[in-house]
């Protein structure tokens, strides 16, 4: 049933949760400290401001960005399993990065490393491939996800191939990269990622009413006055680009894009995209921020790549979503 009256309450709780994740997580890690210690000790101040803050912000916006990207894909393709990960965008980006690593590309253009550019290119390219498939005859949203799985599988096969034939230090770099992680992010990398991601948020915000209409099906949306082709092209390109930048910066982080929108639909069912986008962003952002904090402390003194944590938590959730589809309360 409709839960209109408690939506503001739930939204407040989600907002408080994510804000406290954003506030407290930078203090926790291999070395934990309090606010007082940050102020008083030079060493902690450096860790806090130069390492933890950019890292936490990267996790926060990547989590939120992937969640909104997942929401956009789910609405555009009317498929609950659509996300940057399942549609092969992350896979393509990883392949692009792996190729650049194997080629020994170490330089950078305008502050963006060649490896990142390879990831962005790979992500956009695999999206073009999937979109081309969508526009071809006889495709529907079920075959779309199958096509995404195929793209992901082929990409990971190729990555393993490159991994095997590469010299050891490249092979290690590829493996570490494909696990995904927000460690080692400085303010410059953060800024390069934030610009396209914020642009993506802006475009999505403007097109939220159109996303609402997409969920009713192409024919209804079209006859209600949505320029379907234009809106879809804009949304797909900007989303693919933003995902490319996020994967380029943080590696392929799975399941956030699927989990967050569905968690929102479970917590506050029946909402339109204006609320869904905000809520997905907050849940995705706090999920990745908390996951990254867990990744820092769970196997001390070693750090686990955050992609592993999200996969361990996300996999089972993915299954729950699959099972819950039966009761048709969700999408």
């Amino acid at each position, binding site marked *: *049933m*409709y839960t*209109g009256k408690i939506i503001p309450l739930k939204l407040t709780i989600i907002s408080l949760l994510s804000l406290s994740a954003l506030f407290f997580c930078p203090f926790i890690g291999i070395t934990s400290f309090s606010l007082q210690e940050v102020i008083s000790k030079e060493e902690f101040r450096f860790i806090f401001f130069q390492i933890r803050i950019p890292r936490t912000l990267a996790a926060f916006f990547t989590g939120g960005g992937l969640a909104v990207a997942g929401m956009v894909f789910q609405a555009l393709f*009317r498929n609950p399993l659509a996300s940057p990960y399942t549609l092969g965008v992350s896979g393509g980006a990883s392949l692009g990065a792996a190729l650049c690593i194997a080629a020994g590309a170490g330089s950078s253009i305008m502050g963006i490393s060649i490896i990142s550019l390879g990831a962005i290119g790979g992500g956009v390219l695999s999206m073009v491939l999937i979109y081309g498939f969508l526009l071809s005859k006889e495709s529907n*949203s079920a075959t779309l996800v199958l096509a995404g799985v195929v793209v992901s599988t082929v990409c990971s096969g190729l990555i393993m191939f490159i991994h095997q034939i590469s010299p050891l230090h490249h092979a290690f770099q590829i493996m570490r990269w494909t696990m995904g992680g927000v460690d080692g992010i400085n303010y410059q990398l953060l800024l390069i990622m934030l610009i396209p991601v914020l642009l993506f948020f802006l475009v999505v915000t*403007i097109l*939220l*009413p159109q996303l*609402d*209409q997409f*969920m*009713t*099906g192409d*024919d*209804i949306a*079209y*006859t*209600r*006055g*949505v*320029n379907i082709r234009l809106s879809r092209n804009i949304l797909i390109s900007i989303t693919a680009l933003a995902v490319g930048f996020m994967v380029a910066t943080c590696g392929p982080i799975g399941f956030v894009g699927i989990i967050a929108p569905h968690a929102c*639909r479970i917590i506050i*069912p*029946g909402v*339109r995209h204006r609320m869904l986008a905000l809520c997905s962003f907050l849940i995705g952002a706090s999920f990745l921020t908390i996951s990254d904090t867990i990744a820092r402390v769970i196997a001390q003194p070693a750090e686990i790549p955050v992609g592993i944590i999200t996969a361990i938590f996300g996999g089972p959730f993915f299954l729950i979503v699959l099972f819950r589809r039966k009761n*048709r*309360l*969700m*999408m």
Partner: protein
Amino acid sequence: MSISKEIISIQNLHAAYKSNVVLKGISLSVRKNERWAVIGRNGTGKSTLIKAVASIIEPQSGKILVNGKDILSYNARSRARQIAYVPQKTDGVIPYTVYDYIMMGRYSAMDLFAVASQKDHSIVREVLALCNIAHLSDRIMSTLSGGELQRVLLAGAVAQNTPVLLLDEPTTYLDPAHERLFFHALSRVHYHQDLTVIMVTHDINIALSYCTHICGLLDGHVAFCGSSEDFKSKCPSILFELFGIQFHKYSSDENTATVFGAWGAECIQAK
């Protein structure tokens, strides 16, 4: 009564949908406030015709004029202020409340950010009452029964407040009771406001009792085009021509209503 204005003019339309159903030169003139039923066998192009009028598919040749203007020259929003469309069924689940879904029908009348005005809210409430679904307003669409869903889809199109409403087999999947509720709601709408209706249906008796005009399609051509009375006077021979099986006329004892049915008729594959 003044002669009402032509609102839709279909001129020598050729169109194909999914490359197998073909319209081979359809011409049809629909005047304001008329209610048309498009009937014919499966695969004769009924849905193609209605999708072409909704401009979901583009004609290969020929023209469709709406209020004297080519449908292709309208932009998405201005077209949506002229023509609303109710599909046979929705593909996939619509995860909104009934109220929100109907409000979304106001899209073409809203500004860029689709913020609902007081007027939009009052229109939605009016449509909810008109279609007898006010009690469903807080329900989520995916929890509705097929019959309820179809009336909500109708309400969403009515909220668009267009002079033309297109219905593609709106009651095909409904039981007789929900079918009646659907047409009861539709009757209330066009009693309440000016509305030109074109609908595809397989139910001859619905077509004859609800619609003022009939367009019978056969192999992508117009085989009959005229008023329901005219059609009735040619029944059942015209039905044999259209469907290739023998229909019979049945009269009820209590009143003078007559219905047509093909029960017990032999299937003759007439071309």
